[in-house]
């Protein structure tokens, strides 16, 4: 008897309901009602999710496989069927809990943060819609439905980035996010087509069973599976902001901070990771793709970290750190440690959400100021925020016993053991870790210590209301404890999280053995040392009095993000715009299409000018025309009769 599990659709439906209510009626409602609807729907779906998980665990114990239930047919064409099928397995459990839980917390936070913003109901309507699509994404049992959620969250991200649609930059950022994602989705769709062409189905079960029966493709071989996996990964790069499609995420910070926390840190951007992990069977059978994933992930982690070093906008820093952390996740997946990747995904969801919300709280306190050079010495004024931020920073920096220590550690460990140039990957990852702890502590010092760099008379720094701080504390607690599932692994015990996910990913990782045990200890010590180095460098540079130096040289390059945007502008956007303006607009649209239309118009007018002479208004002439018509008809009728030779003898 599993009431919720059997009606899994109810979990995503609740946020949709909230979205509809707020979106259609919320305009007239007071804030309280809007809050009630939004929080109620998300909170309830969180509770139900927990219940569903409980029921699922019971279900799993009795019969050892994922729970899949088709609810109704969505598309049925020929032998193609895409049903509204929802599934629940350990991976889903993690995602659902993260999404609903973190989502719920961020909703609470938003009620405080957005209190003084216009379009209050609109914001929550969008947020609920996002929840709906995200849940669809994680609950989907086939690629088609997953793609629905995929595109849906993309839409919501677009809507929320452009929430302040009166700001040009915001709308541009929204467009950028949307368009860049299109590129990735293009690859994703191609991947789906290929999969369907190969397996004649998009259901996870079917596809993965078929795949697992196929032989594992050799390294460097580009077989169907490899190509499919790469195409899917292309989608992932788009959604999860990996090289080369990461450019949209930093701009996405134009959106309200809770949005950055929920969508662009905790949940949506991890969808790519989830998707890759979900289709791990494909990837494990395509080592080439795995390698690519690992390299891209690793590169992104390092690359984004370097940019993060010098950013001055507090949210930009966090954005690049997000990109870099996502890189870690992909690195984990790439080297086959899907469990580690998902583990990092979860912990990252906690501490990055925490960091963003804390940053939001800071911005709130500063009355909208985002530039760290305009802050400083805030620690005594906003203690709660400070402590939470500090927790998050320590967590991301990877000091034990905080969450990221375990997750990042296990990723690096797996990378180290990866057969293809694992050491290189490990090294780069380690450097990224150093830089991570550096730029995070840089952020801490610039924001909370050192002397004030703002005008007291204009900015009245104040602690945020409780409905913002409480979620902060909860998240801080989570980022502290989130990693404890893996705690025993350190002392030869077993990794509960990996254990939990084992049914999904199989006991692939855990390159155990006594040697592995000792190696793991050394590596984790190395990691801690790396974090400590970052901390010390940051302290050395920013603990004393600081002033903004004019940036030049490498600093300048980093500050301008390697001019990647400019590069894209020059290489892709510029030519495309030129092509559109000159060819598609001037030539195709104006000349061809408009030409055709006008040509038709003027042509018909010309015809009319000539033909209207027949409209003499003289009935007798009309009579003659009738005659002509009659003759034509008669000719058509009698032709066969009059020329039997042509048509054979009639009758």
């Amino acid at each position, binding site marked *: 008897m599993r009431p919720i599990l059997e009606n899994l659709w109810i979990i995503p439906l609740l946020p949709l309901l909230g979205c509809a209510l707020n979106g259609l009626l919320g305009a007239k409602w007071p804030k309280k009602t809007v809050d009630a609807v939004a929080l109620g729907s998300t909170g309830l779906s969180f509770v139900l999710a927990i219940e569903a998980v409980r029921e699922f665990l019971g279900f799993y114990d009795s019969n050892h496989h994922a729970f899949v239930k088709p609810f109704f047919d969505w598309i049925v064409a020929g032998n193609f069927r895409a049903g509204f099928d929802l599934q629940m397995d350990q991976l889903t459990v993690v995602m659902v809990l993260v999404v609903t839980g973190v989502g719920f917390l961020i909703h609470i936070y938003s009620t405080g943060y957005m209190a003084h913003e216009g379009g209050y109901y609109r914001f929550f309507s969008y947020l609920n819609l996002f929840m709906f699509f995200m849940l669809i994404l994680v609950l989907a049992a086939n690629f088609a439905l997953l793609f629905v959620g995929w595109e849906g969250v993309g839409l919501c991200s677009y809507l929320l980035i452009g929430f302040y649609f009166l700001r040009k930059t915001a709308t541009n950022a929204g467009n950028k996010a949307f368009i860049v994602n299109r590129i990735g989705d293009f690859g994703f769709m191609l991947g789906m087509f290929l999969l369907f062409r190969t397996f004649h189905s998009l259901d996870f079960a079917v596809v993965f069973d078929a795949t697992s029966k196929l032989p594992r493709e050799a390294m460097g071989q580009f077989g169907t599976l490899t190509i499919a996996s790469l195409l899917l990964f292309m989608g992932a790069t788009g959604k999860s902001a990996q090289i080369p499609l990461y450019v949209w995420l930093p701009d996405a910070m134009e959106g309200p901070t809770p949005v950055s926390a929920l969508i662009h840190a905790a949940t949506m951007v991890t969808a790519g990771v989830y998707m890759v992990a979900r289709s791990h069977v494909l990837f494990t059978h395509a080592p080439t793709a795995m390698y690519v994933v690992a390299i891209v992930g690793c590169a992104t982690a390092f690359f984004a970290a370097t940019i993060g070093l010098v950013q001055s906008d507090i949210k930009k820093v966090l954005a690049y750190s997000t990109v870099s952390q996502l890189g870690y996740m992909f690195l984990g997946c790439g080297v086959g440690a899907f469990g580690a990747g998902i583990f990092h995904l979860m912990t990252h969801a906690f501490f990055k959400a925490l960091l963003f919300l804390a940053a939001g709280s800071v911005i709130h306190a500063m009355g909208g100021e985002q530039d760290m050079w305009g802050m400083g010495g805030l620690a005594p004024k906003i203690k709660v925020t400070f402590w939470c931020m500090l927790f998050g920073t320590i967590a991301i920096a990877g000091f034990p016993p905080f969450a990221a220590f375990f997750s990042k550690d296990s990723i690096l460990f797996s990378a180290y053991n990866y057969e293809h140039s694992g050491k290189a990957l490990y090294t780069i990852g380690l450097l990224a870790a150093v830089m991570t702890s550096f730029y995070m502590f840089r952020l801490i010092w610039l924001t909370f210590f050192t002397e004030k760099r703002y005008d007291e008379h204009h900015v009245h720094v104040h602690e945020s209301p409780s409905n913002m701080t409480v979620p902060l504390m909860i998240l801080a607690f989570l980022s502290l404890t989130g990693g404890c599932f893996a705690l025993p692994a350190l002392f030869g015990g077993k990794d509960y999280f990996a254990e939990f996910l084992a049914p999904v990913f199989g006991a692939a990782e855990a390159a155990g053995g006594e040697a592995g045990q000792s190696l793991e200890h050394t590596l984790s010590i190395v990691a801690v040392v790396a974090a400590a180095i970052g901390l010390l460098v940051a302290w050395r540079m920013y603990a004393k009095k600081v002033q903004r130096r004019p940036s030049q040289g490498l600093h300048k390059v980093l500050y301008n993000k390697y001019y990647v945007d400019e590069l894209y502008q020059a290489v892709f956007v510029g030519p495309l715009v030129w092509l559109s303006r000159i060819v598609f607009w001037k030539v195709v649209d104006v000349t061809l299409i408009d030409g055709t239309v006008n040509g038709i118009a003027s042509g018909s007018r010309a015809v009319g000018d000539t033909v209207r002479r027949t409209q*003499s208004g003289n*009935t007798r002439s009309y009579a003659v025309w009738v005659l002509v018509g009659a003759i034509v008809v008669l000719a058509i009728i009698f032709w066969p009769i009059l020329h039997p030779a042509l048509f054979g003898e009639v009758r």
Partner: protein
Amino acid sequence: MVPTNYYLILSAILFGLGIVGFVFKRNIIAIFMAIELMLNAVNLAFVAFSQSFGKVDGEVFVLFVIVVAAAEATVGLGIIILTARNRRSLNVERVDLLKL
């Protein structure tokens, strides 16, 4: 016994004459009458066929044609009366407001 062809040819001739009248009469009433003439020619053909095939259907059709002609005459003449009242002329060539 008269061959059916004779009737058919006669009806063809009448029809042709009807057309000629239809084109060459200027008086709208006369044109109308030419149309009636054509209808009659067709009726003749109908009856001839029905006789030659020994079936009554043709005659039924003639009845229908006559009914239609009656209705047509009613409305048509009404229109003609109005036209004549407004245009003060029955010459179709003078009723030419419908030109470009």
